[in-house]
Structures are given as structure tokens and as C-alpha cells.
């Protein structure tokens, strides 16, 4: 199996994830799009690990997963805190850092 289809798939998933970040307003859906992007890069890592014949890529993917987990924990906690104080989960409402 040539790695090219896997990489192309990874690229497509990454792009869709980034579009989700740009387009969706619900903070949690945005976060999920970010997770999608991370997963797409994991796929690429595993593909290249197989292409190069060593497990470095899988180790990297493993670490990505662990760090993603930590990130999700903290990120969701933040979203929840914001929601509690501002009663809104829309990313557009947090727009005080402007001109």
C-alpha cells in the first residue's frame, strides 16, 4: 500500500477540521474540530512510521494523543468556567481583545 492515499486523506481531514475552527461558533464544536485536526496528523504520523519501517512515528502519535487528552481536559474546564460566568458558549462573544 503506498502511503499517498493515507496522506491525502489526512490532508483532507485536516482541512475540514480547520474549516470547522473558522466557521463554527459553538466553542465545543470548535474544540472538536481541533481534535479532528490532531487526529488527521496522527494518521499521517502512523503512515510515515510504516513507510520508514520504524516505530518513531507511532511513538509520536502516542504522545500526541496523551497531550491532546491533557489539552481537552483543561480546555473544556475553561469553556465551562466561561459558560458559568458569561452564560454563553459562543466564541464570538469573547471579543474584548480588540481595537
Amino acid at each position, binding site marked *: 500500500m503506498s502511503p499517498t492515499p493515507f496522506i491525502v486523506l489526512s490532508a483532507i481531514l485536516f482541512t475540514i477540521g480547520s474549516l470547522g*475552527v473558522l466557521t463554527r461558533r459553538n466553542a465545543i464544536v470548535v474544540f472538536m474540530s481541533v481534535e479532528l485536526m490532531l487526529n488527521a496528523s496522527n494518521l499521517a504520523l502512523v503512515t510515515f512510521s510504516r513507510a520508514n519501517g520504524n516505530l518513531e512515528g507511532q511513538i509520536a502519535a502516542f504522545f500526541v494523543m496523551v497531550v491532546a487528552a491533557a489539552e481537552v481536559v483543561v480546555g473544556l474546564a475553561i469553556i465551562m468556567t466561561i459558560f458559568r460566568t458569561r452564560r454563553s458558549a459562543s466564541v464570538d462573544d469573547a471579543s474584548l*481583545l480588540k481595537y
Partner: protein
Amino acid sequence: MSAVMSNLALHTAAPVVDAATADGVFSLLWLVIALPALGAAVLLLGGRRTDKWGHWLGVGTVAVSFLLSLVMFFGLVGRDGEDRQVSQHLWTWFTAGSYTVKFDLLYDQLSAVFLLLITGVGGIIHLYSVGYMEHDERRRRFFGYLNLFVASMLTLVLAGDFVGVFLGWEGVGLASYLLIGFWQHKPSAAAAAKKAFVINRVGDIGLSLGSALIFVTFGSTSFAVVSANADKASSGVLTAIGLLLLLAACGKSAQFPLQTWLLDAMEGPTPVSALIHAATMVTAGVYLIVRANFIFSLTEDARTGVVIVGCITLLLGAIIGCAKDDIKKALAGSTMSQIGYMVLAAGLGPAGYALAIFHLLTHGFFKANMFLGAGSVMHGTNDDVNMRHYGALQKAMPVTFATFAIGYLAIIGVPPFAGFWSKDKIIETAFADNFVVGLCALVGAGITAFYMTRLMLMTFVTEKRWEPDVHPHESPRVMTIPLIALAALSALGGFMLLNNWIVDWLSPVVGEHPEEHLGVSPLVMSLIALVVVAIGVAVAWFLVGQRPVPREAPTQVSVVTRAARAELYGDAFNEEVIVKPGYAGIRGLTAFDGSVVDGIVEGTAAAFGGLSNRFRLAQNGFVRSYALAVLSGAALVLLALLAVNFS
């Protein structure tokens, strides 16, 4: 230019300055300058402590310098005709690349007579000032400035280098400014000092540019190098140098077109007018032309320019002098005219250089004499300068009248007084050169006779028109003794022409005096000149002497009189052509600076501000917009990577 062609051919090449080193009595040459300089330093820096004896120190330094000059003069007389150039090297002033300027003093026949004139007449005037300025509390400072002037003038005539001349030139300009504006509390005096300085500055451009051109052409500005190589330069360059030096001379000697400052300079105390604006500083221009004879003798065009300037000025000064009621201004017009004669003579080439110097010396005697006499008259009439308030002072101030009369006879050219000999020779030489030039000189002599007679009549002879509280009396001895001394010199100064002595004395410096070919014999020429003078005297006798002199200047006068009163519109011309456009230019520049330059600077700042105002709208606070920017950036990076990788 071609209309005023010289009939005198150039017989020999210009003489080269090739001086021997100063030894024996000449090694004291530097002392001649150092003493007045020291006097100036002590008097100006010493302050009020020197007030009691300051004036005597001032007189003393100049007197000792005179004695030294006399000793050195006789030393020079004792030498051979060819051996009379002495140079004393003081120090090397500066070196810039291949250009070295040494502070060397050159003492030759020309410098010798100037030294005697400056220190002699200067010393006499210093003595006079002791009495004249007795009631002035700043007398000590006056003597400090006078000494500064003498030191600068001596530097000017003793320098062996054009740059050294420039140093002295500027020094006398400074001293003139300080002395004209000596009575600082008078706004007119301050304005006159400023005017003199500024107009002098215009002339100084000529000297500095001329020196620069000399350096560029000859690689050095010392007289020795330039005179040796003068014939190797192109005539165009020599003409340019000559005209630039003429410009400098016009500024310093109050010749047309830079003549408007001289009459205003009469604001200064009378000794200043006598010393600086009659005898010495205003003659510096003539000195420069004669000293640079090695350049002028080789360029006919520059000499033509000099002659034209001389002719115009001698007539200009004479006409102005006819209409002035201020005695000092009348004498100043006379000075302008007489220096015109000197410049005219200098422009005639080797035939005229010595005559110009001769007239310079005699003029120094009789003009200083008349100025000091005018000062004496003012002293006796409570410092009134208006001749319409004088009259019948003959009886009240006999010594002043006698000495003044001798000076008067000298200036109008009555034999055997000094002025006759010098002015006559100039008229002769002018006619030998060109008929028109000679005619100008002759007519000028006539007008001189007219206005000087008018002055004498109004001041001494006509009925008294004194102010109510004026009691004219003779001046103290400290003032009359100098008058007598100068009157004697005015009377006997003609002896310098005995056996053509002055001409022979100066010929090693200025070149051999060529033979003249006059249409008539010199005797007939002199008679014609005397007749013209007599006509001038007679006209003045009838117009001024026989009629009552009004106390107020009449307003219904002819156009010529009005023009003469306005100094032939010299001031008006300067105002319209130079001052007003200058101010307009300045206003334009300020406006330009304010709107364009400041506009650019502030406009750039404002543009940046405006631009940033537009750019900050991109910070809309929405995370998604920022995320879009991040993704766009990532796309650009990707694009760059692909471009680099696959190009």
C-alpha cells in the same frame, strides 16, 4: 570695454617679489604689529583698572611703532635699489595637503610708506583723541579699539600672503564696526555699523574667492610664488582674479557699487572718521590693487574695470558732496571721490600705481587734517554737524581755520600744496591713457573745488548762524597740535614728488614707469586743471558766498540737488534691489519650510497615523478572524515551501 582702450603699452613684465630675510634692524618688524596688538589686548581685557592711563598706553604703542617704522624706513633707504625687499618669517600658519600658508611679513618700499602713514597719521590722531574723547567715560575702550585697528591695518600691509592680507582685512572691518558703533546707545550708530560691516562683507567675498582662485591657479597664495608665476596663467583666469580683487577693493574703499556705507559711517566719533574712513582703512582697497600689480598689469580687462569704477566713483562722490549740509558727510563724499582718483590711477597700470600711492599719502595728510579740523569745529559748537548752523568761525577758531584752509587748498589742487602735485599727475596720466577718462578726472577736480569752497564758505566765512547756546572757542592744545602737524604735511607733502622720488622709490615694486605721450606739455595740462579749479571756486563763491545761507535746508530745489541729497539714490537702489527681494526670499523660504518641509514631516506622521487607524480595524476581537489569518499564513508558508522545493 573696447571703448576705453589704454594708450599706454606695457613695457616690462610685472616685478617679482623676491625678498631677503630680515636681519639687523628689520628683525624688529614683528614688533611694529605686536605693540598695538598688545596695547589692544591690555586695554580691552584689562577693564576699568586701565582707565586712568589707558589712553596714554594707546598713544604710546603707536608712537613706538612709528619710531620703529621710521628707523626701518631709513634702513631701507640705505640699501640698494634692487635690494629693498625684506621678509620676516614668523611661523607657519597652517598646512592643508599641499597648501601651506606662512605668517610671513613682507617689508618693501610699498609697505614702508604705508607703515609711516598708518603709524604716523595714526599716532597724531591718537594724540588728538586724548583731548577729543576726554569727556567720554569709555575713552579707554576707544583707544583699545583704535589700537586693534592699527594692529590689523599693519597686518594687512605687512602680510606676505593673500591670506595674511585677508586676516588684516577682516580685522580692520571688525575695528571699523566697533568704532562706528562706538556710541552704542545711538540706534543710528548701531545701524550704520551694521550697514558698514554687511556691505564690507559683500566685498570680502571678492577677496576670499580671489584668494581661492589664486590658490587653484598657482598652488599657493604667497606674493612671491604668485608674482613669479603670474605670466603663466591664462588671461581669463587673471581677469577673473583681477575683477574679484576689484570687488574686494570696492567694498573696503567705498567705491561704486558698494559705496553706500561710507556716509553713514560718519556716525562714529570724528577721530574714527579721520583715521579709518579717510586716511587708512578705506585706502586698503587701493593697497590691494597696487600690491597685486603683478596680476593687474597682465590683464587689460580687469584694469579697464578698475578705471571705470574709479571714474564713476570720483564723479559720484563729488556730486554727493555738493549737496550735503552735514560737514562730516560732505567730507565723506569727498573721501569717496578722492579714493576714486586713486583707484582710477591704479587702473592705469604701471603708469599709475605709484601716482595712486602718492595721492593716497597726500590725501591721508589733508583729509585727516580736515576731519580733525571738523572735529575741532564740532567741539566748539556743542557737537553740531550742520554747516547751516556755522558761519564766521574764522575769528572764533583761528588755528582750526588756518589748518583747515591749508587742507582745503591741498585738496582742490592749488600749488605748492601736496594735493596739487598728486592730483595733477593723475589727471595727466589719465589724459595720456584715454580722453574720456582724463575728462572725468578734470571735471571731478572742478566739482571738488566747488563743494570744498562751499564747505569753507559755509563754515568759516559767511555770517554767523549759530545756535542760541553755542559759544565757539578754540580747541585745547592736545587737539590743535595734531592739526598743525597735519597741516604742515599737507603743505609740504608735495616734496615726495621731488625728482620723481616717489615714483622711483616704488618702481621696483610696481614696475617701471613708462614714458607718457601727452598731446600737450605737462605745464599746459596743469594750467588747464588750475583754470577748471578756479571756475569751480568762482561758482561756489557766487552761489554760496554771495547769497545768505538759509538756516533750514530749502525744499524747493532742482532735481540734481534732490538726487545728490539722496546720495544719488544709492540707498534706495540697495533697498529695492537687494534688501526687499532678500526679505521676500526669506519669507518664501520660511513659508516653504513651514508648509513643505514641516508638511512632509508632519504629513508622513499623519499618514502613518491614518494608515494605522485603518489597519487597527483588522483587530476585531473575533477569534475566528484571527484563526483565518493563521490559516492564511500557513497556506502562504506552504506555498513558499513548495515554490522553493520544486523550483
